[in-house]
């Protein structure tokens, strides 16, 4: 039954976080010194406070001690945090998503017993995924789809009843702060997921990617680093249940990222509304000029469309029967949502910044950050162009 009402828990969460962001996040996140610096360290104290609100364990089922939120709840929550700071939302969203998948679907009883209590009790316990979306560039194979073998960077072999992993991965979100790594690995000819503790002596975490230079840019959100595996020895007991978790993770991650992207657009939009109501030029506050009114209307249209698409997609992933009973089209809704939101929010950030005139591009003002954030979302996992071809491939159904 079609129903756009949020549950009372979702409404309560949203209200609580909106207040938290307004009172606690915006001031430090938008501090002019922080905005001007190329390097924006994660707001650690706020990350801990957000964790203590239950967001790190948002996706873990209630019976395991988590909040039991579904993907739609995550979207509502992450949009609110992102209005304050996209990097905080990316960081907490990554841990929350991985923790939900790990403890609910991927972990054995032994693994749950080993890690669940530690995770729930330690507000600074984070997770990362040591791999990239191997399907992200599939669009470039259009119209033939990807017929290559899945390419996974980390490789492993069995040595004396142990698994030995070698290889390196780059731009791993939460790499520097994670205690546990979920790693997709090619073992012999099979693809397996493993859970690895980061203090394993065979793992070297690269420095946080924090400075721009001619060969490396801060073109990502959250806290990133490389992870190098050099004869990293783990037990067979560290193998996870199923490899489908890889696909499930990236599907949900795209949706969560769209929610965070939406929060960036909303932050820009709200700043523009506030400013245009007080900026007086041309004989009135500029919000009263038709030129500005049209821009605001265009922004509102894009934000509302993006949120509607986002919630619909999250609902479809949370309730698989909406596809199987033909309530919704069987399309890659997560890619459609991600692509539409990225383009729409880039336009929203651009229009919002224009309302500020010259201040829209000053580094001590928030608008340039929203613009940069929106561009990173547009081209952060893959290419905006090939993303379209992934959608086309699904629609064309040429197989």
């Amino acid at each position, binding site marked *: 039954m079609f129903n756009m009402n949020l549950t009372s828990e979702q409404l309560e969460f949203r209200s609580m976080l909106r207040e938290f962001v307004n009172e606690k996040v915006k001031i430090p996140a938008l501090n002019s010194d922080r905005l*001007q610096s190329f390097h924006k360290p994660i707001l650690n104290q706020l990350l801990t406070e957000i964790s203590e609100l239950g967001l790190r364990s948002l996706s873990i089922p209630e019976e395991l001690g988590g909040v039991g939120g579904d993907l739609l709840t995550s979207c509502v929550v992450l949009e609110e945090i992102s209005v304050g700071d996209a990097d905080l939302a990316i960081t907490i969203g990554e841990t929350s998503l991985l923790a939900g998948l790990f403890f609910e679907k991927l972990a054995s009883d032994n693994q749950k017993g080993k890690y669940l209590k530690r995770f729930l009790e330690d507000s600074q316990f984070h997770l990362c995924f040591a791999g990239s979306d191997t399907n992200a560039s599939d669009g470039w194979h259009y119209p033939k789809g990807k017929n290559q073998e899945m390419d996974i960077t980390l490789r492993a072999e069995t040595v004396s009843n142990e698994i030995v992993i070698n290889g390196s991965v780059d731009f791993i979100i939460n790499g520097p702060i994670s205690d546990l790594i979920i790693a997709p690995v090619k073992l012999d000819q099979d693809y397996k997921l493993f859970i690895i503790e980061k203090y394993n002596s065979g793992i070297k975490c690269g420095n946080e990617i924090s400075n721009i230079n001619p060969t490396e840019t801060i073109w*990502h959100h959250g806290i990133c680093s490389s992870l190098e595996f050099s004869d990293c020895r783990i037990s067979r007991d560290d193998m996870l249940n199923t490899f489908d978790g890889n696909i499930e993770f990236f599907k949900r991650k795209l949706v969560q990222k769209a929610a965070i992207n939406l929060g960036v657009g909303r932050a820009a939009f709200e700043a523009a509304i506030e400013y245009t109501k007080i900026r007086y030029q041309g004989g009135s506050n*500029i919000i009263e000029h038709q*030129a500005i009114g049209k821009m605001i209307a265009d922004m509102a249209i894009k934000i509302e469309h993006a949120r509607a698409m986002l919630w619909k997609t999250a609902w479809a992933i949370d309730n698989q029967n909406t596809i199987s009973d033909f309530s919704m089209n069987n399309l890659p809704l997560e890619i459609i949502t991600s692509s539409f939101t990225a383009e729409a929010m880039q336009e929203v950030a651009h229009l919002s910044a*224009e309302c500020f005139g*010259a201040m829209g591009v000053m580094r001590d003002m928030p608008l340039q950050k929203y613009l*940069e954030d929106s561009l990173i979302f547009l081209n952060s996992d893959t*290419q905006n162009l090939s993303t379209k071809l992934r959608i086309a491939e699904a629609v064309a159904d040429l197989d």
Partner: protein
Amino acid sequence: MDFSLNDEQLSWQNKARNFSDSKIKPISVPRDQIEGGFDPFDWSVIEEGSKLGFRTLAVPKEWGGPGTGFVTQALVMMELARGDSAICKAFSQNWKWSHLIVNACNEDQKKRFLAPFIEDHRYMLGRGITEPNAGCDNRLPPKSDPKAGYRLKAERDGDDWILNGEKTFIANGSVGSLFFIDARTDPNVDIIHGGTLFLVPKDTPGFRIGKIFNKAGWRFYQNAELIFEDARVPNDNVIGQVGTGSVKAAGGDTTGGDLFGDLELAANAVGVCDDANDVAMSYASNKMQGGKKLVEHQLVQLAIAEMNMLTEALRSFVLRVAWEHDQGSRSANGVLMVNYSTDVVLKVTRLNMDIHGALGCRSNPRVDKLVRDAMIWCHLAGDSNLRLKAFSKLN
């Protein structure tokens, strides 16, 4: 019709291309990546360019300059901006106001200010119009509110004027030696009837530089606050007549102020687009995706074709307007052209980013830089307000 360039134009174009390739482009990204508002600036490239004539390009021959026309100036800007849009702007900002000195200043003022401008390779020019509460109102003053527009106050005191107030976002603000300052000499009427234009050297008592702005794009180019606290300016530094409005004092469009400003931005945009086209073609020709080079994909071919289509259309528009300026023809084409350049430079740099994607953006900071530079167009001079100005010229 004749689209061929003459020998002088070709010579300046070639000289600018060589300077851009050898001196500007190598420092473009490194300067962009320096933190802070002032720090990305570098005097050495300004001095080197000045010695080749790029700082004084618009000064007439009788005053010791190269005496180039608008077409040549447009060609040079396209080349310099291909190396770095912001460095190009730091040079061309001087042309804008040397046009103004030549056309609007009296002989005494020309002698006092053009001579040092020609001689000193660090002598930079700027104009202060914008104030914290007066941006769009300076361009299109509302008839209903005579107090709208700049408020910096100038009061007569004997042979001097006392200036009080502040200007903001002023180009070349932190490096300028001479500024053209719009002030109100009569606060009771609108700026068209109560505004006066003053020449203010940087060492004027009571005048100082305030905050230097730290921008997301055009990072080399300087924008700063100018603070006036009982700044004493001699009456001899008034341009034109007192209380005639700064635009009229400067001779309106015929002086090269607004007239050159439109051409300046649009020609600079062509250079940015040329650079984006080169970067895109180079990346797409080498990067493999989906089993073949990016450039072999229809989608990339379409994007590159669109980038070049828009760039060439803009180049034609710019050279047409430059030619019209050289012929003394005045129309709305200038402001229409700069509006168009805003659309083009944003679109072309974004398509370049689309072609590069996440990997390309991470491996080549120039891709992101070009987009950040392009965004300046719709914040400093090419925004919606300028479109309304275009309409006002058409109507």
